[in-house]
């Protein structure tokens, strides 16, 4: 375990915007090569966390280390990070080609051939003005900009938001998989975590400005269960058990962990319950409420 280097480390991270507390003592660590899904509801602080990691926002308190560097406002850190924002933005008067050339001037590790190849793979017209690009093509360009300098860390903030299925597939099963397999650290926040569930090593739930739950992806895949039971035999609210739905005398629960399931079974309250593996989307939904 000691051989694994830490790519991202946050301790007691605090960030307020006026009186609004967005990050309230957040602790997070990501090892090199790890792919972590950050799960959180709107306004839970995901984008703020990414901006702190990108050295765009200064934390009010707490410690941050990214790839061994401490954010200092110089922007140097961003040279090592590939960032795909939720709403990518480019200078509309530039063509795709000009945009890539402009970016290349700032990233020493920029790989022009790779950028060109990605344009080709993603079918992006390099002569088009970025101001005329569709949302999908803008997202493609953002992905190319994030990947072309071979970053050691990828921060993906709702990277598939608004994209159609084919583009999402292109990006997730092509680009992200490739980068993940290349040993890069990836922090990804996505409302549709289910579609990337196969890529993740770990899922962290961001709630009330803190990491409220931290699970290995395998755990989510193999040890979450849907339990259908009667209301009168429903176990009380407790850690590892979430109510999914309730209809008349019946209800559905999400149970996290085989041990918890066995515990509930042995309590005798779930006699006759239907137990099945929980699909990823439902598991993540349940996690949000955990």
């Amino acid at each position: 375990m000691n051989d694994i280097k830490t790519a991202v480390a946050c301790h007691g991270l605090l960030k307020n915007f006026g009186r609004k507390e967005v990050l309230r003592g957040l602790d997070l660590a990501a090892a090199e090569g790890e792919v972590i899904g950050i799960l959180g509801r709107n306004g839970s602080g995901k984008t703020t966390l990414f901006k702190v990691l990108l050295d765009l926002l200064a934390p009010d308190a707490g410690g941050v280390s990214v790839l061994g560097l401490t954010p200092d406002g110089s922007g140097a850190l961003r040279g090592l990070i590939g960032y795909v924002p939720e709403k990518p933005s480019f200078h509309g008067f530039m063509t795709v080609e000009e945009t890539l050339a402009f970016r290349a001037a700032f990233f020493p590790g920029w790989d022009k051939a790779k950028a060109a190849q990605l344009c080709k793979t993603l079918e992006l017209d390099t002569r088009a003005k970025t101001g005329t690009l569709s949302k999908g093509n803008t997202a493609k360009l953002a992905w190319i900009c994030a990947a072309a300098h071979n970053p050691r860390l990828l921060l993906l903030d709702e990277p598939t938001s608004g994209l159609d299925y084919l583009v999402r597939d292109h990006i997730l099963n092509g680009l992200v998989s490739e980068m993940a397999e290349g040993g890069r650290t990836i922090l990804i926040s996505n409302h549709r975590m289910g579609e990337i569930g196969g890529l993740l090593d770990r899922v962290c739930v961001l709630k009330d400005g803190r990491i409220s739950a931290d699970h290995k992806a395998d755990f989510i895949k193999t040890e979450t269960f849907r339990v259908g039971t009667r209301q009168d035999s429903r176990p009380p609210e407790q850690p590892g058990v979430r109510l999914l739905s309730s209809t008349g005398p019946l209800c559905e629960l999400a149970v996290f962990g085989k041990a918890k399931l066995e515990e509930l079974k042995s309590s005798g309250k779930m006699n006759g319950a239907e137990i099945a593996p929980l699909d990823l989307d439902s598991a993540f939904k349940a996690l949000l409420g955990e």
Partner: protein
Amino acid sequence: MTTLIKLQLRKNLLTFSVILGAVLASVPLALAIKSEGMPAHEAINLAMLYWGLAGLPLSALILSGIAGSEAAGEKARDTEQPLPVSQYRLLLSGLAAALLETFALLAVIYAILGFKLPLESLTGAQEQLLRFFVFGLSCLAVYGFTLSYVFRNGIAGAALAGAASAAILIPLTSTAIFQRLAFKLLPLWLINPLIAAAALAGGALALKLFSQARDRRSGRNTALLFSGSGLLAAPVLAAFASLMWLNYGARQVTMPAGNLFFPLYGTDSNLYPGREKNAALMLAQRPFYGEVFFVDKDGNRAVLERGGERRDSGFTYLMPDLTFSNGQSMTAEDGKTWALYSVGRRGRLAHGSIKEGFSAAWDIPATWSMELLGGKEPGILDRRDDAYYFAPLPPGAGGLEWKKVASRDAGYLRFLGEKYLKDGLAAEVSKDGKTLEHKGKRWTLPGEIVTRAAVPGVRLTDGLNFLVPVRVKDDYSTYLCRPNGKSEMIWPSYFRVTQNLTITPDGTVWGVERRPLPPAGRSPNADIATALFYLLTPDGKAMSAVNTDGILRKAGITYGDIWPLRAQNGYLWFNAGNKFLVKAEAANPENAKFWKLPKVVRERHKTVSPSTDGVFIAGADGIYFMDWEGGSRKIN
């Protein structure tokens, strides 16, 4: 940084192009609407003058305002901030682009003007405005960008930047113009560059603090915003502080209320036997406060005009209000002094003493053409358009009683001569110019006396003496006619008509010959002059061609600025360039002591004014009195 600046220039291209197009279009437009008879280049110059005075500053505000507000916008934040450069660097590139565009427009305007200013000669104020023009444009751009960024609004930022820049430039310009017109009261060579640097560097530094507060949302937002605002406000405060300092300094300026010019024919500096030795007084003024007063060597004051903050014009803060006073005074044997002076446009005649005050005062329409005359019948001589008038002192119950005494054609010298003779203090020259006669005494000179006018006497320890210029063959020399009836040549090959000799308060008579120094061993600058003095001490000892070159050299004075103040017991005292009081051996003037005088406000007549006991010095911060052994004290 270059890539970023190129980006910012490209972003502003449309705005810049529109303004540039307007500049270029104004050339044919000016030609189209010019009046008949106006040369084409004048019409273009006028158009460019508009651009220089109004269009370009406005353009600087527009360009920087748009760039600043754009830099604070979401688009720039989302598009540029993910780049691996600091947010401050991004802002600086925006500011640099705005500055470059502003100065590109200036270069275009200057090129249209043919790389020369349309003004043939600049007034002092124009010169100062021009000096601040480039700084002003920079200031507008820096403040425009920074404030538009802070308020995320180009119009609000530009308006505030215009106000802030005006608040810096108006006092700076005002201070510079005033100092150029009047006195070097402030070290503006240091202050102005400091304020300019504080405005430009402070504006850029404030941008950094605002960036930390706005972009990085640092937890110290209040402190950062406060500090940034302080940096922006500091040059404004410094400029106004500089102006306040100037105002304060100007109100402290004290100088003699002497004549602007040397008196034409009076008692002040001319040789005149009726002139009683003036009491050790200085008629002084604080011209930017309007105060006129007498002060004696012990610092006792008698105020003639009180002055005040509000005088002729109400608002004097930006340019200290000058109420200048010209005056002269004459003290009689009873110790009472007459003062004739003007304050602004008003003239006043006052009578009194320091001890008892100056209560009696008469209003006089104008004093600049008047002169106090002493003697048995003291009075005021006035040169008017039609004739010379004389009014005896003290005035009658109805005020001054003027009497015509000479036509303008006849001149005043005849009247003066008659007055001198009537007072028994002048001698007459015979018609053939061979002899001089006074009260039955007759002196026969070896040659022709050059003047035929009455010769005023000089009162020395042995009585009334007369100095006359005499021509012997082709040589002109000065002879002294002594009370014992004898005459002797005292100043060979040197003479001045008597009225052009000067008498110091202790009674030493002197004349001077100033001539360029030979270049050998010195700079060949022809302005450099030496001064040779011809002196007659109160005890009747004459000295010829006393060379003060050594004193000038030691004092570091190159223009012959040296004046005798006193002669006593084998020593001579000089004022060397208003910088040193010098006590020199009469026999060997190089053997001298130097005492540094306080810094004077400006070299003017009577700035260093001798009395019997020492010299009054109108220093930059008040009046000093220095005795003959260099003991100095501030008396006002």
